C-alpha cells in the first residue's frame, strides 16, 4: 500500500484522516491561531505526533499544532520528486580510469524528507550532475557496494571491499576511490591497508564533514582531490584524502594506518599521528611530503588478504578500572585484546591477575597508548616490566584503532599466539614506524603569541 501519510502518527495522523488530507496536499487550514495554507509535507519519524508540517508559498516550513486545527481543506496536490539531475558521465580518451566504490556516508547525498536526514546519491550520472569537474580529471566508473553509515561499517564490509578492489586492480584500473562516512574512515583505511597489500595503484578513502546538500560542503572538493590522487599520483598506498586546513585550499593524503579523526565536526578533522602526511593534493597537483612510499606500477598484481576475527576488543583504560572488565572478555570468548593504556602504556595493579588469566587462556593482550602520539615504552617503569611479565605485548607506536584492526586481521588468519605476535609486530604499511620525525607531533596552543601570528598569516 502506498503510504499517503508519510511519517505521520498519533494525533497528527488522526487529524489528517479526519479531514481527508494527504501528504503533498495543497491545503488550507483554519486554526485557533488563524489561517495557514501551503503544501503538507511528510513528517520526520522521530518528531512528535502533535504537529503537521506545512510548506508555505514563500518556501518556509512551519508546523501546525493539531490541537488548534478547526478545519482543513485540500485545494490541490503537488508531489515533489527530488532528484539530482543525472547526466551521462562523459568518457575522454586517454584520461586515467578511476573506480569509485560507494559505501554510504555523506560524500554525495540528498535530503530525505521523512527523517530529515541526508541520504546518499551516487550513480556516475548523479555525481557528474553535482560535481562536473570530475570529468576533467578521469574517466569514472562507480559501484555501490553498500549503503551504510560509517558507524555500521565492519569486518564483512572490509572484506567485501578488499575483494572488490582486488578485482578492479586485476582488470587494470588506474586508481581506486572509496566514498565513506568519516566516523570510522580510519578503521576502514587500516583494514584495507592490511587486507590489500602490494597494490600497484593508489587506493583513496574519502568522505566529507559537511554533506553535499550544503553550499559550502567539503564533499565536492574532497572528491576532486581524491579523484586527482587516484588518477594521477604515483603513491600506491591506501590513503585517506581529506581537507588539510578548514579552508578550501588543499587536501592531505594520510597513510591509512597512521591517521585518525580528531575533531567531531571540523573539516580538517583527519590528522596523521606520529608522522607527517604522505602528500598535499590540489586540483592541479600532488606534492609529496614523504618520499618513502610504494610507487605506482604498471602490473596488475596485488595480494588480497580478506580475513577478520570478530571477537577482538579494544579497551580504553581509565583509573580504577575493575578487573571484571577483562574477565568478562575472557568469559565471553574473546580471542584477543588491545588496551589503550595511560602514558607509556600502563594500567593499574588490580588488573594484573586478569591479564595473567588472559595469557593462561591463550588470549593475546597488546598494549597501545591513549596519548596517541609516541611509543609504548614498557621498560621505563616497574609497572611496565610487571605488565610484560603478565604477558602483555607492547606494539610500539601503532595507533589503538589500528592495533585493534590488525589484531582482528591477524587472528582471522591464525590462532597461534606466536604467529599472531609476528604479524602484529611486523610493520606492513607504516602501522609501526622506526622513527618518529620531530615534526610528527605538532599540537599548537591557541592564544600563544607566536601561534596567533602564525594563524593570522596562514589560512587555517
Amino acid at each position, binding site marked *: 500500500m502506498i503510504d499517503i501519510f508519510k511519517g505521520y502518527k498519533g494525533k497528527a495522523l488522526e487529524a489528517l484522516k479526519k479531514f481527508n488530507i494527504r501528504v503533498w496536499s495543497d491545503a488550507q487550514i483554519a*486554526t485557533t*491561531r*488563524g*489561517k*495557514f495554507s501551503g503544501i503538507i509535507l511528510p513528517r520526520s519519524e*522521530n*518528531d*512528535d505526533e*502533535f*504537529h503537521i*508540517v506545512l510548506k*508555505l*508559498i*514563500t*518556501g*518556509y*516550513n*512551519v*508546523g*501546525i*499544532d*493539531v490541537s*488548534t486545527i478547526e478545519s482543513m481543506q485540500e485545494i490541490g496536490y503537488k508531489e*515533489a*520528486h*527530488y*532528484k*539530482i*539531475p543525472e547526466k551521462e558521465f562523459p568518457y575522454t580518451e586517454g584520461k586515467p580510469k578511476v573506480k569509485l566504490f560507494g559505501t554510504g556516508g555523506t560524500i554525495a547525498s*540528498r*535530503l530525505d*524528507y521523512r527523517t*530529515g536526514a*541526508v541520504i546518499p546519491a551516487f550513480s556516475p550520472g548523479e555525481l557528474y550532475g553535482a560535481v562536473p569537474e570530475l570529468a576533467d580529471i578521469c574517466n569514472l566508473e562507480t559501484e555501490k557496494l553498500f549503503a551504510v553509515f560509517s558507524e555500521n561499517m565492519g569486518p564483512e564490509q572490509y572484506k567485501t571491499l578488499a575483494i572488490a578492489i582486488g578485482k578492479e586492480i586485476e582488470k587494470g584500473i588506474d586508481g581506486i576511490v572509496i566514498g565513506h562516512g568519516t566516523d570510522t574512515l580510519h578503521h576502514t583505511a587500516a583494514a584495507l591497508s592490511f587486507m590489500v597489500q602490494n597494490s600497484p595503484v593508489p587506493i583513496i578513502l574519502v568522505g566529507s*564533514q*559537511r*554533506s*553535499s*546538500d*550544503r*553550499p*559550502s*560542503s567539503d564533499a*565536492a*572538493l574532497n572528491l576532486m582531490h581524491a579523484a586527482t590522487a587516484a588518477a594521477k599520483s604515483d603513491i600506491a598506498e591506501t590513503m585517506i584524502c581529506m581537507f588539510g*586546513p*578548514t*579552508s*578550501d*585550499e588543499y587536501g592531505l593524503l594520510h597513510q591509512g594506518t597512521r591517521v585518525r579523526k580528531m*575533531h567531531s*565536526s*571540523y*573539516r580538517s578533522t583527519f590528522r596523521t599521528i606520529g608522522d607527517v602526511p604522505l602528500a598535499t593534493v590540489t586540483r592541479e597537483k600532488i606534492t609529496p611530503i614523504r618520499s618513502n612510499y610504494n610507487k605506482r606500477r604498471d602490473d596488475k598484481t596485488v595480494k588480497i588478504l580478506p580475513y577478520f576475527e570478530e571477537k577482538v576488543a579494544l579497551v580504553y583504560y581509565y583509573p580504577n578500572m575493575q578487573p571484571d572488565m577483562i574477565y568478562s572478555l575472557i568469559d565471553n570468548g574473546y580471542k584477543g585484546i588491545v588496551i589503550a593504556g595511560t602514558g607509556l602504556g600502563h594500567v593499574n595493579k588490580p588488573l594484573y591477575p586478569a591479564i595473567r588469566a588472559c595469557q593462561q587462556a591463550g588470549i593475546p593482550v597488546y598494549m597501545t597508548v591513549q596519548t596517541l602520539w609516541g611509543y609504548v615504552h614498557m621498560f621505563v617503569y616497574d609497572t611496565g616490566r610487571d605488565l610484560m611479565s603478565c604477558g602483555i605485548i607492547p606494539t610500539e607506536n601503532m595507533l589503538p584503532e589500528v592495533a585493534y584492526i590488525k589484531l582482528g586481521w591477524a587472528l582471522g588468519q591464525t590462532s597461534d599466539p606466536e604467529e599472531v605476535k609476528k604479524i602484529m609486530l611486523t610493520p606492513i604499511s607504516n602501522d609501526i614506524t622506526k622513527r618518529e620525525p620531530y615534526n610528527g607531533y605538532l599540537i599548537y596552543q*591557541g592564544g600563544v603569541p607566536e601561534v*596567533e601570528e602564525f*594563524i*593570522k598569516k596562514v*589560512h*587555517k
Partner: protein
Amino acid sequence: MSMKFDAKKNYESTQKKVGYISRKKAKKSDYEKLGFISGLEVHQQLATKEKLFCHCPVGVYQKGDSYDAELIRHMRPTLSEMGTYDGTALMEFKTRKQIVYRIKNVTTCTYEVDDTPPFPLNREALEYAIEISLLLQQNIVGELHITRKQYLDGSIPTGFQRTAIIGIEGEIPLKNKTVRIIQLSLEEDSCREVSDIGHVRTYTTDRLGIPLIETVTYPDMVTPDEVAEAGQVIRFINRSSNKVRVGIGAGREDVNVSITGGTRIEIKGVSHISWIPELTHNEAFRQKSLLIIKDELLSRIENPAAWKPVFKEIKFDVSDIEYEPIKTAMENKWHLIACNLPHFQGILSHFTQPGKIFADELEVRLKVIAGLERPNMVHSEDMNPVFNEEMLAARSKLLASHAQDAQLVFWAAEEDIKTAMDTIEERCRMAFEGVPKETRKALSDGTTIFERVLPGADRMYPDTDSAPIPIRDEYIESIRQKVPESLAKRLAQLKKWQIPEDCYTFILRNNLMSSMEKIIKELKVDPKFLGTFFAHTLKHIMGQYASAIPFDFNKIYDLIAYAQQNHLTFDILPDMLKVIYQQPRIEFDSVLNLIEFEEYNKNAILKNIKSLRSIFNGITHSRNPQAEWKWIMGNLRSIALGNMPLRELSQIVAQELKEEGGAQ
C-alpha cells in the same frame, strides 16, 4: 557605425520619452499611472546577549583590517527539495568567487565558520520575536521549523541562513490605510562585506549570527512616501518592544518595487528609511525605461530569438590609447574583446535612472557576474569616447557592424572572457523581455545597481541539524502578558494627550511612551508640554550638540522631578538639558551653577522693572513700547529663569508699560 551619434542628446530625449519627473514634482496620480506597488522586508536585530545559534557575544564589531585569522570557502549550488537548482545559486557559481572570512576570536567560534553544528536556538531571541509577532497581530505557528535559506554570495559561511517563521499574516496601521503583513521570521544576521575585488570577496564574521527578525509586508504601498511610512511604523513597533538593538546597521530594509508590466525588484540593504522614497521613485522609472527599451527593440528586431551579438578579439594596435584601465589591461596581457550588438544603437545611452544609462546595467553585471573590476568596458555611446576615429573604423570593420548597431569593448583575463560574453548576451536578451528579475543595491544618490539574480522559493531547505521547536499556547500567553500596547493604541493616546502630530515620530522612534506615561502620572506634568519638550527641545539639542554616550531618556524624569523639588519653573529646563545632554554624568546642582542660576523671589525680580524703565528712557528716545518691553525682558530673563514663569513676567511688564501708557 555612426560616429556622430549624440549620446547626451539621446539620454535627454529618452528621459523625456520615459516621462521621468523628479520626486518633488510627482503626484499620487503619477504613481497610479505607473502602477507603482511596493512591499517591505524590515530587518531588525534583537537585543539579546548571545547570538542565535551559538554563545558568541552580540554587538562587538571589528574593523575590516583587524582580525586574528582568515579562512577560505567556495560556494556550490545544491538542489532544492523540489529538485531544482536556484537561479541565483547558478549565477553565484559562475562568478567563481574565493570567499575570505576574517575572524576575531572574541566574536567568532567554530559555529560561525561552519565547523560545528548549531547549538540549540537562543530562547531569549525566540521570546522577543514572538512578542513582536504578537504586536503585529499575527497567526503564530504551532511549531518552529528551522529552514536553510541559501545565500551563495558568501555572506554566510555555511552557504545558507538559518531562519524560521514565527508568525504569518497580521497588519500595521498607516495614517490612511492598513498594510498587511506576510510573515515574521527569526534568523541569523549575515557577515559584513569588507571588499569585493576581482574574484576575491572578503567578509568579517562579527555580525554573523546576531538574532534578527524580518518583517515582510504585502505590496500594499502605492506611493514612495507610503513605503517610507510603513518602514517607520514597523520600526516603531519593533522598538516599542524594547527588545531590539538600535544604532547603525541594527535595522535595515529591503524594498520590493514593481510597476505595471515590470517585475518585482528587490532593493537590498537600505540602511536609512529616509532613502526609501527616492529609491523607489527611481526604480519605478527605471522599470518604465526598460519597458520602453523593450518596445523599441521589438519594433526593430523581428525575431529576438535569432538575435546574436558578435564578439571578436581586437588585435589591431591600441598602444596609443591614453585610457588607464585599457593600458593596465594590456600590461597584464589581458584580452581586448569587441562586441557588436545588432540594432542596439540608442539603447546603450538610453535613460534608465537619473545619470544612468542602459550600458551601466551591462557594466555592473560584468563586474558582479564575471568579476571584471569597473570600469570594465567602453562603448559606442560613451559621453567621452576613448577610441579615436581610426580605431573605431578598425573596430567597425572587425565586427562588420551596421549603422543601427551599437558596439562595446571590454577587457578581461583569458579565464573570464567566456562568462563576460555570456553575461553581455544574457543581459541584452533580457532587454527583449523588459525588466529582469534581480536584487539591486541601494546607493546614497537614490539610484540602484545590480546585485544579483532574484532568488526564488527554491532556495529553502529544511535544516537537518535542528529539531522543530513546539510553540505551545501557554508559552504564547505568558509572552502576551508582557506585550506593550499596540501602535494604534499608542497613537490614540498621543492624540488624547493633545500632543502635536509632528512629535509622534520622535516619540515612537525612541520608544518614549512609557517614560512619558510615568512623568505625566507621577509628576503631574502637562502632556502637551512634555511631548514638545521631548520632540522639539530634546530633539533640537540632540541635533545641535554632541554627546559621548547615547542619551538616557530616563534622565528627563529626574530632571523634571528635580525642578519640581527645587521649585524651579520649567522655563529653565531647556538650558539645563543642554548641559545634561553634553555631560550626562553631571549633578543637577552643578548644572545650575554652570548656567549661573541664582534664586530670587518674584518681588525681587519685579522690583527691577521701574529702574530698568528709567535706564531705558535714558539711553534711547524710542517711545516704542514694544522695544521697551523687549529690552526689559531681555534684562530680566536671566534672573527670572527658573524663578518665575517667563510668560507671567512678560504679562506683568506689558501690563506696567500699558498702565503707564494709559496714564499719559
